[in-house]
């Protein structure tokens, strides 16, 4: 008895008393694992060139983070995995024949401006990968919208430029078959085409409890319902709801970008607002905007509102009392 007391002192601390074995590196490494199916699909459909793009993005992201933190005399956090995710997500959203220099530039911008200039992980307002992509979209608008046919390893053909299903739907009124979209056998950003591969990773993350179901479901649901209204009005002109959520970057964004812990709201109501408004906005850009795809801008736009949403959807803290104009629950003067 006395021995035990000597060994383990009585620890007195405030709550929480139950601690879970979670940490930033653990979460990030799980997300990396969840992205592996999408990477595999991108290599299957677009060849080793896709792998090269992703590796370059990851490498430059890590290098930028390391260099920035060394120069600023800050603790180096390249092992927590967050820079790897930024690099992977950026790489997965690039067209297959994108220049390597462009990939380097985009990764540098994503980490340097999108993340480190705000103060590093946890302080960035915008999703770094999407900010890097938006920068590339403005820097190389032609390269960023030059797509290629999928060239699976089985039928190795040279790059044939092709329009994405979204561009075909928007400008020519042709809708790609849903099975092709589901499997990923269409032109598009290397990691965005295969719905099944992304779903495997996303559901794994959901199973591990690292993403909140409100965000992907709200985002995809809003896209399907809002897009579906116009499909019901005119099914010839507007694509059907499933097409909306299967085509373009919707799937990847819904599971891996909308759910970014840093750049999404923390309150339950705020998460609904963020996801639903983002989904509606994406469809608005798709149907009436100048670009065929609106997922990237819809998320970046909603990212900007996150501090405001958090502020105004804060649930009342126990013991806080009534708001002005409300009847005080107890003992109000």
């Amino acid at each position, binding site marked *: 008895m006395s021995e035990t007391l000597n060994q383990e002192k009585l620890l007195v601390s405030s709550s929480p008393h139950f601690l879970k074995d979670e940490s930033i590196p653990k979460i990030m490494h799980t997300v990396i694992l969840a992205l592996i199916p999408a990477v595999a699909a991108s290599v299957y459909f677009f060849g080793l060139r896709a792998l090269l793009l992703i590796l370059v993005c990851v490498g430059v992201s890590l290098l930028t983070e390391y260099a920035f933190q060394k120069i600023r005399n800050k603790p180096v956090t390249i092992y927590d995995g967050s820079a790897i995710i930024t690099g992977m997500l950026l790489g997965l959203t690039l067209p297959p024949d994108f*220049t390597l*220099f*462009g990939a380097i*530039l985009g990764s540098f911008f994503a980490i340097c*401006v999108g993340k480190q200039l705000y103060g590093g992980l946890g302080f960035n307002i915008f999703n770094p990968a999407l900010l890097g992509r938006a*920068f590339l979209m*403005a*820097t*190389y*608008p032609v*390269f960023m919208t030059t797509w290629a046919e999928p060239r699976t390893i089985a039928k190795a053909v040279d790059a044939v430029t092709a329009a994405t299903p979204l561009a075909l739907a928007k400008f020519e009124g042709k809708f790609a078959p849903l099975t092709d979209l589901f499997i990923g056998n269409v032109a598009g950003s290397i990691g965005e085409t295969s719905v099944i591969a992304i779903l495997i990773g996303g559901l794994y993350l959901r199973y591990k409890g690292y993403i909140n179901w409100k965000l992907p479901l709200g985002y995809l649901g809003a896209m399907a319902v809002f897009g579906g209204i116009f499909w019901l009005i005119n099914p010839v002109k507007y694509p059907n709801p499933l097409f909306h959520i299967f085509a373009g970057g919707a799937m990847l964004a819904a599971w891996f970008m909308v759910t970014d812990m840093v750049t999404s709201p923390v309150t339950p109501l705020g998460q609904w607002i963020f996801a639903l408004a983002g989904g509606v906005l994406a469809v608005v850009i798709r149907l009436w905007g100048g670009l065929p795809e609106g997922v990237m801008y819809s998320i970046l736009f909603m990212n900007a509102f996150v501090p405001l949403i958090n502020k105004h959807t804060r649930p009342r803290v126990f013991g806080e009392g009534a708001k002005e104009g409300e009847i005080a629950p107890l003992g109000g003067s």
Partner: protein
Amino acid sequence: MAENNVSLWGEFKKGLWQDIPPFRLVLGTCPTLAVTNSVKNGVAMGLATLFVLFFSNIIISAVRKYISSQVRIAAYVVIIALLVTVADLFLAAVFPAISKALGPYVPLIVVNCIILGRAEGYAQKNPVVPSMIDALGIGTGYIISLAVMSSIREALGFGSILGFKVLGDWFEPWIVMILPAGAFIVFGSLIAAINYISQRKSAAQKALG
């Protein structure tokens, strides 16, 4: 400020680094962002501003004792508006292409904070000669700032400076640099660089003395 022992060189020099307008004073940022997509436009804008600033400082300093302080801003704006009209008509008559490229930004010099700022902060308290030197320093600093901004943006956005190709054919222009977003990126980076250098400088001075 003591009027007699002002070092004129010092008054000139402060506009080039210590008080360099858009980066240190953060005044006159609107044209800095809007017209610096090519060196030609940037420098033309800088020269027009220098012209207005030079004469407005001289006139305001000369009449500073006759303007009652209640109506001074209105009086300054009338003087500045006159000079801006001169600059605007001159550009339209002699360099119509530049005038067209600069668009509304030449008439907008009238509300450029650098000019009213120097009138308020310097010319109304100092005699004519120091005010003139002050205007020259600040105006030159502004031209240099616009030239640096526009060189970076034109080089990256078109691969050229003043229309001459400086980057080879291998270079794929960064379209973003000639868009407003590029202006903000370059502006922010330059402010950061200047703050970094001056922090290093003051740290070195502290270490010495």
